[in-house]
């Protein structure tokens, strides 16, 4: 039951790893839960959950696992019981089992947790979109939500690769984007300014002034130079965007590697932007954030880059309740949300993975082109988009 809690939390989307779990075990070992379910709840929540946005998911998982448990809990015992039951280890190889059997109580637990740590971290490491997935000996089923499966070693392929092959068999290899080239194009996302307090000692200036001052020390200060650029990336995922997975993921990789930005945030949508944006490409409802919140939180200095093919049914853009997912229909039109974004931020561009001649064929692309300056998702296009974001003010 106890270890189920861990998996249940992960299934609910609470981002916990073994680090947090071990911390909880540590706390339990110290007896901090005081044999009370309520205190155990408080304790596990403050140790495992690091953002209030996951409280709800935590509650759901907690309810599912501990429903019917009342009064006192003796978790350590239960955990040890679980670890002692060989049935739970049937997926281990003989070698590993022999190793486990040679270990005793505490050591066993530690060892098991280590194995767990290795696996979860490998899976976590390979962010779904950014192709960094390491070679994992445990790489069965790249999209297994918990990422824990003790299995045979030596697959020698990253979990990412597996996911990619399954989903995008027909992806195009037109090589519109090369990561290095993209990075170069993005390097111009710079707004170096000397703003803020003058707290950097200007050595050259100090020497000059001191010389002019006949050797009397005269300090000169200036503000530090720093990149003041904040970038918000909004991405269309799924459906007609699937064939463009490759160029889009390259753009994302390059942006994630771009350390120089003052701030960078990415959100996802399907076809058009409405009341909510997804935190990741899976667009889970429970992880969605209200678009309005985003507009309040980010001020107009943020530069916006929207990536999408702008191709959808006209009603999705121009009619109320346009969301293709009927459960999320709302009276505000998609086009109005696009206008709100345009009005809120000083600069926004649209990057379209479709070749430019195709744009005029889609009615919605023609409409969106009138709202945002549209560029092709290619090295040249990104370069032009960057100019539009930081160059002379648009009219």
């Amino acid at each position, binding site marked *: 039951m106890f270890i189920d809690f861990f998996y249940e939390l992960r299934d609910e989307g609470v981002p916990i790893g073994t680090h947090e779990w071990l*911390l909880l075990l540590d706390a339990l070992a110290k007896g*901090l839960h*005081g044999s009370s379910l309520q205190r155990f709840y*408080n*304790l596990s929540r403050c140790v495992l959950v*690091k953002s209030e946005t996951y409280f709800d998911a935590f509650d759901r998982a907690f309810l599912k696992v501990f429903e019917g448990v009342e009064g006192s809990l003796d978790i350590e015992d239960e955990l040890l019981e679980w670890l002692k039951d060989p049935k739970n280890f049937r997926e281990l190889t003989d070698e590993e089992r022999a190793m486990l059997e040679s270990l005793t109580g505490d050591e066993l637990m530690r060892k098991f947790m280590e194995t767990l740590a290795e696996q979860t971290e490998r899976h976590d490491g390979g962010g779904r979109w950014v192709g960094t997935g390491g070679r994992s000996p445990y790489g069965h089923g790249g999209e297994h939500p918990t990422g824990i499966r003790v299995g045979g070693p030596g697959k020698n392929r990253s979990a990412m690769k597996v996911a990619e092959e399954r989903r995008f068999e027909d992806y195009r290899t037109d090589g519109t984007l090369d990561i290095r080239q993209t990075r170069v194009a993005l390097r111009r996302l710079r707004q170096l300014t000397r703003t803020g307090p003058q707290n950097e*000692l200007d050595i050259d200036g100090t020497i000059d002034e001191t010389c002019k001052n006949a050797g009397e020390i005269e300090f000169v200060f200036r503000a530090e130079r720093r990149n003041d650029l904040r970038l918000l990336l909004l991405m269309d995922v799924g459906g007609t965007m699937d064939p463009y997975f490759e160029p889009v993921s390259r753009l994302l990789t390059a942006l994630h590697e771009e350390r120089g930005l003052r701030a960078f945030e990415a959100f996802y949508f399907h076809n058009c932007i409405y009341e909510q944006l997804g935190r990741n490409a899976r667009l889970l409802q429970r992880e969605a954030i209200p678009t309005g919140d985003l507009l309040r939180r980010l001020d107009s200095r943020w530069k916006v880059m929207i990536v999408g093919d702008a191709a959808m049914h006209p009603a999705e853009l121009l009619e109320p309740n346009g969301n293709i997912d009927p459960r999320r229909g709302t009276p505000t039109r998609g086009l109005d949300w696009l206008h709100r974004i345009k009005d809120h931020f000083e600069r926004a561009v649209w990057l379209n993975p479709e070749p430019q001649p195709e744009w005029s064929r889609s009615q919605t692309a023609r409409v969106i082109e009138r709202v945002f300056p549209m560029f092709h998702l290619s090295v040249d296009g990104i370069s032009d988009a960057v100019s539009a974001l930081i160059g002379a003010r648009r009219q």
Partner: protein
Amino acid sequence: MANDKAAPTSDAFNRFTGTQGYIASHALVDAVNCAIALERPLLIKGEPGTGKTLLAQHVAEGLGLAIEKWHIKSTTKAQEGLYIYDTVQRLNDARFGEGDVSNIRAYIRMGPMGRAFQSDDRKVLLIDEVDKADVEFPNDLLRELDEMRFTVSETSDEVVAKQRPMVIITSNNEKELPDAFLRRCVFHFIEFPDKALMQQIVAVHHPHLKTQLLDQVLVKFYWLREQSELRKKPSTSELIDWIAVLQRSGISVADIEANIPFLGALLKNEKDTEALGKYQERGGRYPSSWKDLGPKFNN
């Protein structure tokens, strides 16, 4: 929860139980004690005006420890919390032949974190509004918070905490904090006070307020907070100010039933005031009872 109280507790736990001036929820008490027992920093989040900074003060008071405060600004660097090397003073002294210029140590001043480490007694270290600083700021403090030691690079001296301070970090949620940093913290979120708790809080500040008036005031207040168009939702402190203004102006219950007078005390953003103006132009009206606010406030 009432059944907590009877639960047996170990010595390591339950050292903090709140103070007279600060009513802490059970979840908060557990989080504080958990952070103490596990020797982890305690990260407190919550809307502005929910008493995050005050908590550190009262934890220190409750534990009988001195407090070291480090208020973070947008320009604060991690280094400044550890120590500051005063180059300018040293150059100046060299010029005028004052002070012991050859002794670098004389020009090294400890920051709040450095002072907490050097102190012979255990201290509470408050890192206030950590989200104000640069995105990388929390990452720069990982090692110091983990190992409770740092090196003064100018002198190669190592400063090791004599007594591991209890670290309390507050955040207003203005920026996402890095995962590596979060992983090390014990987290607690101070929820916005609900209707009942808010009545208690108001009672502390305005003990002679009429019940009817308070009810109207709170209906308007929570209604405003529900409006998603507002950029800055009014917080507790603004409510307290607003009530003070209402009382001084001698306004009656009837006056605020259909109106929100002295809106400036609640809304601090020009665009928010405009948005509310537009709402009225469109013929929107303000609610005058809890029933208008939906099921959330009516159980």
